[in-house]
């Protein structure tokens, strides 16, 4: 009945709407044109005909009500339901909530025929989000459809899976989707890969075991499937580029074929072959070639070809060019390519098309650090862009300028940034830009006045959205000062003066953070300004306190300043007044301050000692153990008070009382409470006591401590020398811009098109001259070093405000303090004396550490690593690679006429060269389980072999060093590098004073795994003294299984332990035919993974193992219909994942 009413209702506006001439879809009907007389059509038309939002709302509500009735009516047919869903989607799109229909969308996907199912799936993917609870109801439908024989159903299921799927249900569909990778239809294979990509994104460890299947997909004969697999590879390589270096050859070959037009013409887009594919590959190559000369070597040719081939004037070729340029500048540089890429950037920058210009700027910004001369070439364009009406171009230009800032152009650049800042309203842009200005100002400020003024602008424009680092850094800079004491005073004085001037304006509203900065500075340094009466300052602060826009946090800052000022003045009327007022304030914090101030004022001597002048940088020694309370405590105990129990102890006691009810372990909370109480050292009830009675200074120190911690994250892009070109340019035709002669400026543009080269003397219009002027100020100090010395300023970047080493001190102190407290419990007195010494030491080490982290040396380290990994991986990857190559030969593009790429030469060079000296294990180790002795590396003089011995409590690495020469080798030194994954027991080095000719020595190292990973590389080097220092590098792959040992226990123990463990992982894996019986499967696990079989009951089994030294991991398995359900539990979160991976591996192997 209601249906009929609804029909008439919705038909009415439809009739009205038909008068609208544009409403019906005119023209010939394509395959998808639907008659507009449908109900959806009428709904849409009536909505278009409406004039007010209110009417629309009314109509939609009406529509929703009728829809609600229809969908929940049991008589509604699926066909009608489908039509309802489409209308619901439409309502949702207009922004109206229609959650009542969600469940019906799922039902429709489940029950409908193809057409209805498709709408159902679409509605689900539009309505629900990943964490929606209803999504679980979809899983069964998906599983059913995946098993369907109808291709379209399978397709739809795969599509929905790759868009939206609950993470915890992945195991339910994973095996089905894996099967689809072998499907005969390309589209199914491609969608399966897509679904796996989705899984990889949301749960990478669940698809760990199918990495070799990705390789197969990469070699698929259909280019679409291959392209889909590239998404996965891009993601994986982003996370770990070193693991996939061996695939570089394949990617290069694929790109070569694509660029060469060997793909079917279907993939052409505006006659460019598969541009999306190309760009994907270029990105992958960029990641692989980064800082790796050897890998980069492989790609130079194909990059060159890509640049050459992309010549048609179309957006898509520009997109490819842009990507090429980025890749070229990312990988290990090659001068020819760089030159070509630079030319390419020129094309972008000089293009009249605004989109291309923007990309050109973006590319310039990217490459400018490597090649600042490019900025010089395009300086005029950059200047034009600076005043471009389109904000995005302006912003990108500023970003570019930010990267070329130095001591000489900072004033102009910061001015430009401030101008932009004042126009900008977008909060995100403001935060970003303000941070940059502050950074530049700090680094390159030419003088005090400018610095303070700039920071004032930053604070007042940036307002309260600025990152809290900025005011904190600024204050620290003021407080700690620089090398020159006189300068410091000047700076502080100027700051005080400028703030006083700012506060002069009565009714101006300043951001809170700015007020805080002001009050701190005034409180700290007011006395530097001698011509102003402190009373005046106090009055100003007082009036601020009365303002309503000042937040209570800012008020406490102001109070702190007042207290500090008051300590240096004799009786002040303002202070008395203020104390009077605030003593009755509703804000408890302020009231407390007021009382403190009152009491301090009564005892000036105490006040002076508490608040010494300019002491913000002196470190307070805090007696964190509260030893001064010892007498009080002793007295209390003597009077029969209960001794203090720390938090965790109390909790434990409470637990033991409740034991009968406690089923779940409290392991975690116990651990955290231990660590938190560890900080307080002697378990004092109040924690760190920062002399809570001193107000001003201690509060600041507290602040600063948290600030210094954050400092570590601040990027230090710039070295001390500021921005200097790496090498002399070959085209150094006087590209150094000068402030004085216009001629030389233009000479700098020799290589550019004539359009930009007017006669320098005659035809320069006023405007041009202005621009030239701007250019000369902007790009000063950028060219070759010769230009710089011409300017008479050899040091380009006079880094004015160097942070003193003190920065880390406060943090150090706190670390130190907590360390000390732990050990100081017994005798506190003498240790206190050692504090300064310790501090200095650790400060020193901190600095060396910091220095080590400077970019150049870290590059070196990376280079080394990059050199090593291919070698070390070669062995382990050999098998994989061979199989991959074999595969590719047979199947890669087998149906098209593409030449097949050969296995890369490096794969074959692994020829086993036997040494005459074959080492053997010493007898006492021979009996223990051990691996074969394998060669690690060798040179003319030395050969290294390795054997792993699995003892009960560690992994022993036995390294044999054989001397192949005919003379003795002296001072052979073997060093393992520290890694985060492994811990080397005893020391990481071994010394052999002498190794006789033709003999073998060995050393052994006990290893433990610190951070769980399936496998990781331990590298090291061996060096010896000959005429020159000779080093030989090697690396060893250690897998998780090297550190897993069986763990013996009874079933009862297992049960108890099981309940107490919190991290669990479940997964179903397929059993292969040969392990059809459950016990056979368990045998495999037991033998290959060194698990201890605790018990088997029916079709369930429990196994246990431990990660050395003693991290348990328990496994419960169960079989049902050919699947083995594994359930791991362990206290260590990463361990179950690692073991699961191993299980999948061995089960697949066997």
């Amino acid at each position, binding site marked *: 009945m209601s249906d009929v009413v609804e029909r008439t209702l919705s038909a009415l506006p439809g009739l009205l709407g038909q008068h609208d001439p*544009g409403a*019906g*879809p*005119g*023209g010939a009907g*394509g*395959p*998808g*044109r639907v*008659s507009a007389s*449908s*109900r*959806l*059509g009428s709904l*849409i038309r009536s909505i278009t005909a409406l004039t007010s939002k209110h009417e629309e709302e009314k109509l939609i509500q009406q529509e929703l009500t009728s829809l609600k009735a229809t969908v929940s009516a049991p008589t509604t047919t699926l066909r009608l339901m489908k*039509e309802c869903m489409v209308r619901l*989607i439409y309502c949702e*799109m207009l*922004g109206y*909530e229609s959650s009542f229909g969600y469940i019906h969308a799922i039902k429709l996907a489940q029950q409908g025929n*193809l*057409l209805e199912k*498709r*709408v159902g799936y*679409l509605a689900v*993917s*539009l309505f629900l989000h*990943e*964490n929606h609870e209803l999504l679980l109801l979809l899983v069964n439908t998906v599983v059913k459809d995946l098993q369907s024989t109808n291709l*379209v159903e399978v*397709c739809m299921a795969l*599509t929905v899976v790759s*868009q939206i799927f609950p993470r915890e249900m992945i195991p339910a569909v994973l095996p089905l989707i894996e099967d689809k990778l072998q499907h005969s239809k390309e*589209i199914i294979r*491609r969608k399966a890969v*897509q679904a796996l*990509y*989705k899984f990889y994104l949301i749960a990478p460890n669940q698809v760990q075991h199918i990495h070799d299947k990705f390789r197969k997909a990469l070699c698929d004969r259909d280019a*679409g499937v291959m*392209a889909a697999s590239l998404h996965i590879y891009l993601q994986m390589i982003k996370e770990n580029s070193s693991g996939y270096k061996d695939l570089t050859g394949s990617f290069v070959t694929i790109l070569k074929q694509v660029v060469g037009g060997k793909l*079917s013409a*279907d*993939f052409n887009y505006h006659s460019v072959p*598969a*541009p*999306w*594919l190309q*760009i994907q590959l270029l990105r992958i190559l960029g990641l692989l070639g980064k800082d790796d000369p050897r890998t980069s070597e492989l790609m130079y040719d194909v990059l060159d070809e890509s640049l050459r081939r992309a010549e048609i004037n179309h957006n898509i070729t520009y*997109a490819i060019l*842009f*990507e090429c340029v980025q890749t070229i500048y990312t990988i290990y540089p090659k001068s020819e390519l760089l030159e070509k890429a630079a030319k390419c950037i020129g094309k972008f920058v000089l293009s009249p098309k*605004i*989109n*291309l210009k*923007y990309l050109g700027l973006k590319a310039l910004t990217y490459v400018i650090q490597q090649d600042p001369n490019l900025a010089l070439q395009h300086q005029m364009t950059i200047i034009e862009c600076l005043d471009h009406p*389109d904000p*995005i*171009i302006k912003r990108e230009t500023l970003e570019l300028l930010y990267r070329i800032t130095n001591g000489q152009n900072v004033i102009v650049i910061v001015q430009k940034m401030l101008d932009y800042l004042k126009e900008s309203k*977008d909060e995100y*842009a403001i935060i970003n830009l303000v941070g940059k200005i502050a950074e530049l100002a700090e680094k390159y400020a030419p003088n005090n006045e400018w610095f303070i003024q700039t920071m004032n602008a930053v604070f007042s424009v940036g307002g309260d959205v600025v990152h809290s680092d900025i005011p904190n850094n600024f204050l620290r800079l003021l407080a700690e000062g620089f090398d020159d004491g006189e300068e410091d005073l000047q700076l502080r004085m100027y700051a005080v003066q400028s703030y006083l001037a700012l506060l002069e304006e009565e009714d101006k509203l300043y951001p809170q953070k700015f007020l805080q900065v002001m009050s701190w500075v005034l409180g700290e340094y007011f006395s530097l300004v001698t011509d102003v009466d402190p009373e005046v300052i106090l009055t100003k602060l007082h009036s601020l306190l009365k303002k309503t826009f000042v937040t209570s946090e800012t008020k406490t800052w102001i109070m702190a300043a007042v207290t500090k000022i008051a300590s240096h003045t004799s009786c002040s009327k303002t202070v008395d007044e203020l104390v009077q007022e605030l003593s009755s304030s509703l804000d408890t914090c302020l009231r407390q301050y007021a009382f403190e101030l009152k009491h301090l004022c009564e005892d000036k001597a105490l006040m002076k000692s508490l608040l010494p002048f300019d002491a913000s940088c002196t470190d307070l020694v805090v007696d964190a153990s509260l030893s001064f309370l010892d007498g009080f405590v002793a007295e209390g105990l003597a009077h029969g008070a209960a001794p203090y129990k720390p938090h965790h102890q109390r909790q434990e006691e409470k637990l033991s009382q409740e034991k009968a009810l406690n089923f779940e372990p409290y392991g975690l909370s116990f651990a955290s409470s231990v660590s938190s109480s560890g900080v307080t050292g002697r378990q004092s009830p109040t924690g760190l006591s920062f002399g809570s009675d001193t107000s001003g200074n201690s509060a600041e120190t507290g602040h600063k401590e948290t600030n210094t911690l954050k400092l570590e994250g601040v990027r230090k892009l710039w070295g001390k020398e500021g921005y200097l070109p790496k090498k002399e340019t070959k085209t150094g035709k006087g590209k150094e811009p000068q402030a004085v002669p216009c001629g030389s400026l233009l000479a700098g543009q020799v290589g550019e098109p004539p359009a930009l080269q007017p006669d320098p003397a005659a035809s320069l219009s006023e405007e041009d001259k202005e621009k030239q002027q701007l250019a000369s100020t902007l790009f000063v100090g950028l060219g070759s070093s010769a230009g710089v010395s011409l300017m008479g300023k050899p040091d380009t970047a006079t880094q004015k405000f160097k942070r003193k080493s003190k920065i880390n001190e406060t943090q150090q102190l706190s670390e130190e303090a907590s360390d000390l407290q732990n050990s100081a419990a017994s005798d506190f007195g003498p240790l206190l004396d050692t504090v300064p010494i310790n501090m200095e030491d650790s400060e020193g080490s901190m600095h060396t550490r910091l220095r080590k982290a400077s970019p150049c040396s870290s590059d070196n380290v990376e280079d080394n690593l990059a050199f090593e990994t291919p070698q070390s991986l070669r062995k382990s990857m050999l098998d994989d690679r061979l199989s991959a190559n074999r595969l590719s030969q047979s199947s890669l593009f087998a149906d098209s006429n593409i030449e097949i790429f050969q296995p890369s030469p490096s794969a074959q060079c692994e020829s086993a060269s036997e040494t005459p000296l074959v080492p053997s294990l010493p007898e006492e180790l021979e009996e223990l389980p051990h691996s074969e002795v394998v060669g690690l590396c060798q040179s003319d003089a030395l050969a290294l072999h390795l054997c792993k011995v699995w003892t009960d409590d560690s992994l022993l690495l036995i390294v044999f060093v054989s001397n192949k020469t005919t003379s003795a080798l002296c001072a052979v030194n073997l060093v393992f590098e520290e890694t985060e994954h492994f811990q080397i027991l005893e020391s990481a080095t071994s010394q052999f004073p002498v190794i006789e000719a033709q003999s073998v020595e060995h050393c052994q190292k006990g290893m433990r795994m610190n951070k769980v990973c399936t496998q990781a590389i331990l590298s090291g080097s061996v060096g010896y003294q000959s005429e020159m220092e000779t080093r030989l590098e090697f690396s060893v792959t250690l897998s998780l299984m090297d550190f897993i040992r069986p763990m013996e226990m009874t079933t009862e123990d297992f049960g108890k332990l099981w309940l107490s463990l919190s991290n669990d992982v479940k997964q179903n894996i397929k059993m292969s035919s040969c392990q059809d019986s459950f016990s056979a499967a368990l045998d495999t696990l037991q033998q290959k993974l060194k698990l201890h079989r605790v018990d088997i009951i029916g079709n369930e089994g429990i196994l246990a193992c431990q990660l050395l030294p003693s991290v348990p991991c328990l496994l419960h398995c169960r079989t049902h219909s050919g699947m083995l359900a594994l359930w791991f539990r362990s206290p260590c979160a990463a361990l179950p994942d690692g073991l699961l991976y191993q299980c999948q591996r061995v089960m697949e192997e066997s």
Partner: protein
Amino acid sequence: IHFILLFSRQGKLRLQKWYTTLPDKEKKKIIREIVQIILSRNQKTSSFVDWKDLKLVYKRYASLYFCCAIEDQDNELLTLEVVHRYVELLDRYFGNVCELDIIFNFEKAYFILDEFIIGGEVQETSKKIAVKAIEESDMLQETVEEYMNKPAF
């Protein structure tokens, strides 16, 4: 690609597809904001806009705006071509596509989009194959004879 929006010159939303999970309220706010930003831009400016930490890439086809949100390191030009390719696909499917086709057959537009972009990544670069996939499933419907003789829709 974080999301794709299609809206008319009057600011009416025609299609929305989200590849990141956001609460509904947030989505509505974002849509309002973006539609306003883009409609207020004049024709001569570039096709890119900074928006929060993302970038909007948009293009206008007749009366319809296509807008994608991408990350900073993504390729803007390429995204522009993604939009263009999508329009081409629509055009091929509908045959000389116009805004009305998309308004009245928005579910078809969604199907095509899903064939083309999945999870924010372009998945099929071959126009023929994408359209074929859609037509194939349409054909199957026809064999069910559902599609032809159903006047109720």
